[in-house]
C-alpha cells in the first residue's frame, strides 16, 4: 500500500492494474475512475455519458464485475484490477463480431459498456437467455438503435458461446 503524498493538497498516489498493466499516478481524491482512465491514462474507450450513473457508457470491469467508472473514485479501486474495452480479449471480440454482423452499433457511444456487460454476463451464464440478456442490459442506455439489433447480436453471441453456431441473419 502506497503512502499518500501531497495529502495536504488533497492528492494521493493511486496504484492499480489496468488491462494487465500496473499503473501508479498521483491524482486528486476527487478524481473519478473514468477521468483517471481517460485523462491520466489516455484510454478513451470508456465513454463519458450522463455523468450520474444512469446510462452505462462508462462501464468497466473491476475484478471482473461491471462498475460505473463515472461514479467510482479512483482511490476506491486502489489495488484492484480494472479492465476497459481497450483490454478486450477473445470473449469481447466475439461479441463485437456479433454486433458487426447484426449492425447493433450505430453511433457506438454505448457499445463499449454494453460489450463489457455482456462479456460479464456470458462469463457467468454462457447460454444466457433473452430474459437474462434483457436484465443485464437494463444497465445500459442506447439512443440510436431501439435495442432490437442489440438484443439480436447479444442473442447470437450467447448461442455461439453455447457452441450452437449462429445461422446468420434470420432474426427479422
Amino acid at each position, binding site marked *: 500500500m502506497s503512502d499518500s503524498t501531497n495529502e495536504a493538497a488533497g492528492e494521493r498516489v493511486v496504484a492499480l492494474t489496468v488491462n494487465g498493466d500496473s499503473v501508479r499516478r498521483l491524482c486528486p*481524491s476527487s478524481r473519478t475512475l473514468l477521468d483517471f482512465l481517460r485523462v491520466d491514462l489516455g484510454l478513451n474507450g470508456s465513454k*463519458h455519458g450522463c*455523468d450520474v*450513473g*444512469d446510462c452505462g457508457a462508462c462501464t468497466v470491469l473491476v475484478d471482473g464485475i461491471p*462498475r*460505473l467508472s463515472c461514479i467510482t*473514485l479512483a482511490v476506491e479501486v486502489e489495488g484492484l484490477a480494472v479492465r476497459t474495452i481497450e483490454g478486450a480479449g477473445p470473449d469481447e471480440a466475439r461479441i463485437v463480431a456479433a454486433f458487426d454482423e447484426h449492425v447493433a452499433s450505430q453511433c457506438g457511444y454505448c457499445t463499449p459498456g454494453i460489450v463489457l456487460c455482456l462479456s460479464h454476463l456470458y462469463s457467468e451464464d454462457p447460454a444466457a437467455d433473452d430474459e437474462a440478456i434483457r436484465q443485464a442490459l437494463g444497465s445500459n442506455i442506447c439512443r440510436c438503435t431501439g435495442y432490437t439489433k442489440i438484443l439480436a447480436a447479444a442473442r447470437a453471441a450467447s448461442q455461439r458461446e453455447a457452441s450452437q453456431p449462429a445461422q446468420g441473419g434470420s432474426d427479422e
Partner: protein
Amino acid sequence: MLPLPTFEYAAPTTVLEASRLLGTPGSRLVAGGTDLLVSMKHRLFEPRLLVSTRRLGLRGVSVADGVLSVGAGTTLREVARHPTVLEHLPSLAAACRTVATPTIQGMATLGGNLMLDTRCLYYNQPAGWRASLGYCLKREGTVCHVAPKGRGCYAAHSADTVPALWLLGAEAEFVSVRGVRRIPVSSMYHDDGMAWLRLEPDDVLTAVHVPLAGRAVGHRKLRTRQAIDYALVLVAVRAPVDGGLWSAVVSSVSPSPIFVEAATPADLAEAAFRACQPLSTHLPAATWRKKMVRVEVARAAAALTSA
C-alpha cells in the same frame, strides 16, 4: 460535465477510527457511492472529508442461530445471490434486484441502502437547475416547492430494501466511539425529509441482522421503467401468523415508511390507501400514486395468498 467538489479522503481500517473521523465536522461515510457521489456532483453534499468503508471488513454474509447477518458493506448483488437469502428471504433478494440496474447492484451496498438520502423532484437535480428555482428547503433554500405552506420537507424515503427488512423484523447494528447498539429497522426513521435518520453522525452501520423465521413477505416496486428508476410506490406485505393481522409497509410516499395492519388483504389495502398521503415529490401525479398504493398492496397480498 459534472465535476466532483474537492475533498480529503481517508480509508481507515477499524470501525472505531471511522467513527472518530465521522465525529469531525464536514465528514461523510462512503460505501458504494452510487447515490452519494451523484449527490456530490449535484452539490447536495460538499464534504470536507470522505471516510471510506472499503477497508473496514464489513463485507460478507453469515448465518448463525436462525439469524442471517449481512455486513453493511456487502453489495446488493451479493445479498441477492446468497443461497440462504434465496431460500429463506426471497423478498429481500427481490428487493435487492429491483434497485436501479444490475451494474449498480454490484456497487451499492445493503448498508448504503438503509442509509439512503430521502429524494424529491426538486432536490435530486443539478446545482444549476436548483439555483434557477431558488433552491429548496432541504438544501440551501427556504421554501418547499412540494408544499410551500407546509411545515417541513417531504422528500420521500426511497430505500428499496427497507419495507421488506422492516416486516422481516431486521435489526441494524451500529458502532460508534460510544459503543455498539442494535436498532430495529422499524424504528430507524423519522417522518422528516431533512432529518429522516434517528442516528448520530458518527454512528457507523456495520451489519444488518435478519431472523430466518418463516414469515412470508412480499415485495413490490412501482416505477416508470423496470430499470434505473427509483420507486413511485414501494410496498412490502406480510401474511398473518396464527390468526394474527396482515401487515404492510409502504414507502416512497413520505419521509418515513408507513406501517399499517388489518384483518384481511382488502382491509389492508384500504388502510394503506388511507394512511398514505403522497405529495408531488415525483413527476407522476400524487393522486395516481395514492391510488396505486391500494393496488400494489392488494397485488402483494394476492401474490402471498396464491403462493
